[in-house]
Structures are given as C-alpha cells and as structure tokens.
C-alpha cells in the first residue's frame, strides 16, 4: 500500500528497482550508515491529508489578529499589489525553476532578471544592479562589506537614523571581523552632520544613511556625497523604492551604493518575508558587487540572449575569495518587483508616491490638531512622520491595537528619551475614513 504523499512507486516497481540495483531491501541501501549512529527516536506526528493540512493552516492563521488597520512601517509597507503580480509570478515555469545555470532553457528567468536590474537602475539612478539580495538589512551589510573591499579600509560610519533592525543586521555581519562600526546618534530626527564631520577622515570606508529615514524625514545627501568623496570614501544610501516615484534619486545625489528592501514592490507583508534586498552601484564597482548579475549576449546565430555573468566573483567559483557567500537569492520576489513596476508604470509610480504623501500629510495635519500632539518639524516627510504625544507612546499603541488599529512604531525602545514619540505610516491603501478613525481613537487614548 502506497500511503505516502508524493512518493509514487508501487510495491512492484520498488521490487523491480531493488532487483536492478542488486539489493534485497531499501533498508540495505542505508547500510553505509554505521548501525550505532542510527536514529533512536523520531517523534513527529503522523501525517495528514491535504484537506486536513490546509484546515490546520487555516486554524493557525486565524490565531492571528485579522482585519487590522495598519499605520505601521518599520521597513515593510502595506501597498497595493495588482492581481497580475500573483498570477504571473505564480506561473509554475517561474516558481518551480531554479537558478538559471543552463541559460538556453532559462531565458524566461534570465530576461526577467535583466529587466529587473534595468528597473532598479532606472528607479535609483544607478549604473548597475545585481539580481537581488535577501532583504533590506542584509543589503546594508553587503554594501558595507563591498565598501570595505573597494577602499581597503576598515571603518563604517552609520547614521543612527537608519532602520534599527538594518543597523543590527549590519553589526551582526561584521561581528567577527576586524571592522569598526560607529553609530551617530540622530539630531532632531536627522543625521547629526556636525558630529559626522568630526569623525570623517581617511580611515573611513563608507558612511551609511537612509532616505527617508526611520523618523520619516526626507534629506538631501548631495553635499554629504561630495564631502565623503573628498576622502575617497563611499556613500551608501538605503532607500524606500515607492518614495522614488517622487524623491530625488541616490544617483542624482552622488551616492556610490544604493540598497533597500523591495517588499513594497509587489510583495505581501507575510509576517516579514520573503521580500528581497536590492543593491545598485556606480558601474565602476561592478566587479565588487555581491551575488548574481545577468548580462546580455548573443548565440552563434546572433540571437539576443541572457546569461549569468561575471561569475568569477561568486562562491561556486571563487569559494573563500568570493565577494559574498550568497547563493540562493530572492529571485521570485525580485520578479514580483519587476511585474509590479511594469504594471504600475512610469506615471503610475509618480501618482502612487504622491498619493502616499498626500494621505500622510492629511493624517499629520489631523493628528497635530489633537491637544498636546505635535509633529517633528525638522524636515519634510514622505509617507511616514514622527509625532510627539503628551504621554508614552507604548501604552497608546497597545490600547489602539485592542481596537484593531496598528497606530505606528513607538520610538522609545530604539532611541533613548523618545518614549513619547510615535512614527506613523500612511500608504495609499488607507482611506480617509480609516485615517479619521485613527485620529479619533488616538485622541481618546492620549486624553485618558
């Protein structure tokens, strides 16, 4: 009786195969494993049917709080995903393929990733993009390591306004290396340029900033890029791709390496993943890029085709001398990003970015009309902004959660002395009605 899922052999077929091999039983094939090393216990529960499995998964998902109105970001954003993204990325020819090692039978994946690289370059104003990294935080870490390689220096300066999780990931990556990571505490929600100036010298490999930053503030790093370049150091910027519908690009500012999390481009929240990290750089740095890069070429008949290129940077060729250890990346999520950007289109992204800002500005104006609530005024904002509450934000957020509103990220646990600060995110998906309800409930919570 064949009672196991997805193992198709009948007992007769198994017998035929054993005879062909010349053994009496399947168990005999495991004889290379010394008997004293064999597993003594294996305690998993018995299997389930497909129907029961899905039912159990539904029951688990229903243990989460559903139907929440999300005014929260922190690196992941609740944006529209056109239906075509699911349907096209769900083509089995894409999602059940693997890394395109054999280009002749992988042109679908290869051309799509070439188009993805193009989209990232055009979005960020950079010269070269790879075919994806894991997420926004690991992309920051890879960019820092790339800067260490390019400059041969061993100091990274990180703006404290960069997403705290990404900063932690970067520190973990560099944990066991002989590298100094210096963080600069924010000043009014912005990079403390004076403190940075005091630290910038020719030992610095790179400065890492974020735009818009964790407080939601939008900055112009053009002058900073010049300052950093004067010391032959590099400027790395982490950006939020949807904001690039409106905001000046890293390329325009003179940034050397641009990174970010691609979740907002057509990838669902999914409790944190998968998304994808993107990394793009000035073209001169292409040989120091981590991960896969797709290049255009031709076959013998002159037909255009695409291949994995500059593979001599990668671990399967260079082993311990590779530019990164990355092998599997987030290809399917990058494909979703490409389909998203192609579906939304050139003007669509501008309109979408504008709508994010309009809704956030509306919400900000309403929130600061609550007595005792003010907004951080130091800089312009995109779709996130920081407000000061007359009481600790932790309690307010916890109270609103019970009313199915995720009111934002309280800053207290990330920045000392910011217990009353709350970062509120408003995407195009939040209706005026939802915003008005947030304002109403927040007013109740702060006045209690």
């Amino acid at each position, binding site marked *: 009786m064949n009672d196991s899922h*997805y193992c198709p052999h009948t007992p007769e077929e198994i017998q035929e195969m054993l005879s062909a091999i010349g053994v009496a039983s399947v168990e005999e094939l495991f004889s290379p494993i*010394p008997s004293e090393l064999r*597993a003594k216990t294996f305690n*998993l529960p018995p299997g389930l049917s497909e129907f029961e499995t899905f039912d159990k998964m539904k029951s688990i998902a229903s243990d989460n709080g559903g139907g929440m109105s999300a005014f929260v970001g922190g690196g992941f954003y609740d944006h529209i995903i056109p239906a075509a993204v699911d349907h096209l990325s769900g083509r089995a020819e894409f999602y059940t393929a693997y890394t395109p090692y054999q280009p002749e039978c992988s042109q679908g994946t290869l051309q799509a990733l070439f188009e993805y*690289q193009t989209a990232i370059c055009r979005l960020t104003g950079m010269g070269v993009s790879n075919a994806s990294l894991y997420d926004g935080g690991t992309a920051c870490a890879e960019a820092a390591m790339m800067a260490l390689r390019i400059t041969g220096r061993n100091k990274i300066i990180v703006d404290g306004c960069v997403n705290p999780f990404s900063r932690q990931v970067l520190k973990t990556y560099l944990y066991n290396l002989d590298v100094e990571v210096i963080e600069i505490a924010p000043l009014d929600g912005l990079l403390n340029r004076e403190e940075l100036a005091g630290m910038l010298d020719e030992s610095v490999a790179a400065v890492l900033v974020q735009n818009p930053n964790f407080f939601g503030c*939008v900055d112009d790093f053009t002058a900073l890029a010049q300052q950093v370049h004067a010391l032959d150091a590099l400027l790395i910027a982490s950006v939020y791709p949807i904001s690039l519908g409106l905001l000046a690009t890293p390329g325009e500012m003179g940034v050397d390496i641009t990174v970010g999390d691609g979740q907002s481009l057509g990838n669902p929240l999914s409790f944190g993943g998968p998304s994808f990290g993107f990394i793009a750089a000035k073209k001169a740095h292409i040989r120091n890029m981590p991960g896969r890069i797709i290049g255009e070429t031709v076959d013998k008949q002159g037909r255009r085709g695409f291949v994995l290129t500059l593979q001599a940077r990668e671990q399967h060729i260079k*082993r311990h001398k*590779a530019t990164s250890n990355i092998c599997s990346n987030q290809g399917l999520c990058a494909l979703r990003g490409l389909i998203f950007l192609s579906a939304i289109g*050139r003007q669509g992204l501008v309109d979408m970015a504008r709508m994010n800002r309009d809704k956030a500005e509306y919400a900000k104006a309403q929130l600061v009309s609550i007595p005792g609530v003010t907004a951080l005024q130091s800089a312009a904002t995109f779709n996130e902004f920081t407000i000061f509450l007359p009481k600790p934000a932790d309690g307010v957020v916890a109270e609103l959660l019970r009313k199915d509103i995720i009111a934002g990220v309280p800053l207290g646990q990330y920045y000392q002395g910011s217990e009353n600060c709350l970062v509120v995110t408003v995407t195009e998906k939040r209706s005026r009605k939802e915003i008005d309800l947030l304002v109403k409930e927040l007013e109740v919570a702060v006045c209690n």
Partner: protein
Amino acid sequence: MQLIYEQSVNGRRGVKLPVSDVPSAAELPENLLRRESAALPEVSELDLVRHFTNLSRRNYSLDTNFYPLGSCTMKYNAKVLENAAALFAPFHPMTALLPGGVEFCQGSLGMLYDLGQMLADITGMDEVTTQPLAGAHGEMTGILLIAAYHAARGNKAKKKYVVVPDSSHGTNPASASIAGYEIITVPTASYGDMDIELFKKAMNDEVAAVMMTCPNTLGLFNPHIKEISDIAHSHDALMYYDGANLNAIMGKVKPGDVGFDVIHVNLHKTFGTPHGGGGPGAGPVGVKKELIPFLPQPRIVMNDDGQFLLEDQKAASIGRTANFFGNFSVMAKAYAYIIMLGRDGLIRVSEQAVLNANYIKERLKAYYDLPYDMTCMHECVFSASKQLEHGVHAIDVAKFLIDKGYHPPTVYFPLIVKEAIMIEPTETESKATLDAFIDVMIEAAMTAETNPQLLHDAPVTTPVGRLDETKAAREQNVCCIG
C-alpha cells in the same frame, strides 16, 4: 523576444489606481524631488500579461520537465503549500514587535516555534532559529554562533581557522571567510570522503569549526563521521552540518546524534518549498544547548501558559541576521509539508530518494565512468571522462539533454570530479520518468561515440543556442539603457 521596455509607449497606462480621497499636499522643496520620473515600462495590462506569460514559457521548470539538478533537491512542490502560505499574506511583522503586539501574532509565532521544534527533532538539535533567509545565510549565521561561543570562552583571538573538505559546497568556505575565518581545505581520499589521516594532521587548537556535508556532495555517507566529530571536539572545534543533503537521511540518522553542534537546513530543498528561479529559500539553523545563548534575537519562546513571546535582551546573542522573522511564507510552506507527510512520510521520502539515486547509478554505470562506485545516498556523481575520449564534455551531454526535454544534472561540481555529472532525482519522480531519463542518458553516451558533433551543436530546440559568455563578461551589458 522584446524586452518589456521595448514595448513601452509613452502615456500608456496599466493598472488603475484608486482616486485620492484627501486634499493634495503642498509640493516638496525642489532639491528633494527627482528631476525626471523613472523610465519604467508603460504597457497595458494585457501586454504585461502576454509578456510575462511568454517569458515563462522560455523556462524549463519542475512542473514541466524532470529537473535532476544535483545538490538542489528539485522535488515536487505541492500546490496546497502555496494556498497555505497565502493565508498569512496580510500580517504585518512589526505588529509582533509593538507593545502588546504578540497577542495578535500567536498564530504566526506559534507556527515558527512549532516548526523549530519539528526541525530540532528531525536533526537532533536542541533549538532552532528560523531567521536565516537561505542556506548560505544559515551557514554564516552558524559560523557566527560558533565565533560567539569561542569568544565567550575567551578564545576569540586563538580560533582562526575553519576546516572544510575539498568536496564542500562553495558557500561553506565563502561563509566562513565572510565570518572572519581562514580556510583549511582537506582533500578527498579514494574512498570518497575527507581523508581522515590528512584531516588529523590539519587539526589543531586554532581550528574553530569543521564544516561537513553528510552525505557529502558525492552522495556518500561518511562512515568516519563520529571519529571526525570526536577529533574536532578534542581540539575544542565545533562541528557544522551543511543540511543541503538532509533529504537522504530523515528518520535514519540525526546529525545531532553523530556529534554535530550546529546545522542549517534548506527548506527549499528537503521540505518541498519551491525554488523560485533562484530563491527565496530559507535556512533555519539548529544548535546544541551550549549555543542557545548566542542565537539571533528576537528569539521566540513559549511561556507556561502556552503563549508565545519574543525575547530580545540576551547580551550574548550575535544580534539579528534578518530584519524580521525570516522568510515567513517559505516557513509556512515547509511547516505544512512536514505536518502533511508526518513521521512515516518523511522516512519514506528519504528511502525513495535513496532508492531512485541508486537505481540511476546502477543503470548508467556501464555507460558513464563512476569514480566512486559504492552505494550512494540521494544523489550520484558520474564523470564524462569516457565521453571525453571522443571530445565530448559534460556540458555537451547537458545540452543534449535539454534538446530531449530534460533539465540537465549539475555539471562540473563537485570540483574534485573531472567532468562531473551530478544527478539527484529526488523521491517524487516515478519509475517511468527515471527510465525515460536513463534511456536519454544512454543515447547521449552512444551519440558521443557515433556523432559527437550533434552533442557539440546542442541545444537546437531552445529559443537561443549556446550563448557567448565571454562577450557578456567583456561588454557588461547588465541593464538596458533607456
């Protein structure tokens, strides 16, 4: 085929956005605005759908072709796993990190916790973190855990090396190197595994870890594995298990029982989640109890009331290896896979994966050189050295297979086998599929003798023939200039 950018028409719109229900905001200062909008495609939704549908048809994939790519475990990806993962699409990960937020994430956190417990049972480990985002990311995480372990014992400066066999995946030395270690490579002996005598000579008290794949990339189970572990431990070096080949041994042997201290598993290999054209995968890391204090934060724990909480304040922790909780939806698929197959199902998976690999090995060994002729586990490695006598390389055999509708096996890996052809059929393929593949492999071997030019010219059935990789590397056209 045209690029999507070449189909773009100025002013054409795809997806319609909602109409804004709030007033327009005042414009941002000019220096903060981009000068020109990004030159993204401007196509109709139908153009978009045709473009990507037609692109997809230029791929071989598991759902369309047998895909015996060695070391990659290209098993069938059950459709219900996709449905199960989609249930979690709306949940924002920040919710769990907010004050009072875990209450609203009990389903997601509980699933991750349970998955960790099940993986711990399968691998013989004490605790599992689900944060690492891929196999290589798991390796780096694991080596950092080992670094933290040595540092906590005051041995940070002393421990300088990581030992790997020459048959290892390239990610092993790359991950250890990125984590700050120098690499010692030990050659393979004639019995197909790391040479035990050379290993003993390579070992010293400055070695931090030994990274092994078991069964190794030749598909062979290392009979000396316990001895190797004991020697490593005698030098206070920890044993790292690369779980890429776990599909061979579920329920048969647990890495934790044979001396491994740290392990990663590739959910996209062993646990049936799709490979996505290169990712996403997921690489949870399991550890023995001595290493629990160093695990990435936040760590998911269960309290006495059965509630799942996040613990984020362990000073000894290596920190964070990903922004949130790992590739969650990949984890949901793997979880569904494990509960669906259950204990006996997973044992059957390993048994039939090993049966299928040995069947192919025995049926093909008269036609292809088998450098290590012994019982294999889930994969077997041939050499095209016989074919090379006729000027035919492994790559030519691979391209011939493409013309016959098969995705080729892994070729030229492991590096220690000349003209390597590494075949991993997995358990989900039927005997009929295996027989048809074997026939085509035999045909390739025959054709190598009678008409080698046919193999050199392959593939001819694909949208493009063999591509000029030198030109690609020289010209570096890696994005379309608009």
